[in-house]
């Protein structure tokens, strides 16, 4: 097993773990943390591609993804705190105002 295959497998496993966590949790903060794991898995794949193909633009893209993750965390946590105003123990299934 080469190092590249190992990192590829790790990235796939991390993405699967993160998606399972995002579906498992009813707490919005725990859900956001699982989504951060998924973003990290994607970033790992980008960096591996940059290493294998020797592309500097892929590493620049990975940096942009990092900033994107920060913006996403800010908005997600604000939404989570807004949900806490409604119920002390929140459930993401409660936020269903957009249901048709």
């Amino acid at each position: 097993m080469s190092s590249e295959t190992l990192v590829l497998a790790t990235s796939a496993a991390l993405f699967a773990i993160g998606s399972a966590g995002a579906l498992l949790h009813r707490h919005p903060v725990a859900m956001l943390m699982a989504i951060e794991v998924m973003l990290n898995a994607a970033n790992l794949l980008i960096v591996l591609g940059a290493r294998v193909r020797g592309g500097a633009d892929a590493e620049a893209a990975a940096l942009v993804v990092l900033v994107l993750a920060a913006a996403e965390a800010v908005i997600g946590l604000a939404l989570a705190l807004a949900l806490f105003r409604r119920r002390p123990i929140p459930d993401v299934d409660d936020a269903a105002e957009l249901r048709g």
Partner: protein
Amino acid sequence: MGNLFVPLALGCLVAIASALGVILARRPVYAAIFLLVHSLSLAALFALLSAAIVAVGQIIIYSGAIVVLFLFVVTLLPTGGRELAPKGGRVTAAIVTAAGILVALAAALSAGALPQAPTVPGDLTVQAVGQTLFSTVIVAFELTAPLLLVAIVGAVVIWRRHEPRPRTAQPAKVTEPRTLVMHR
């Protein structure tokens, strides 16, 4: 990359174990600490993959800003972050989805063969990445600034919209004059 196999395997092991800790921890405080370990292990993996500037950015942005933000929010939680137990359907859905995504990703990633790494270490210097950042992906790079601004303004708007009105602004409630009701 042959001599780096053992450190890479160690980093992958820590990353997967801490990711499992993030999603299985019962309290959000422990999940945030696991997320810190996870982001640090990923920074180590980035450094091993000779992506120095991404590793530094991961430590500064992820471990420094995002995890601290999560910890702040967890301390603001009214019940210490207690969570309702997951419903039975959610556990099944999570396991099925994770298995499906794993199979699909394994099939997709094994179909596209990786070329043997032709790069010599030190090929991707910080200087090369910086030059790309300011030439090829300059649009995306510059757009991150308004993105962050919009995120900040959006967070404030979401927070203020649900804020209860200040008490002084409420008009004094006029009580109805009581009327005498005769019951027969």
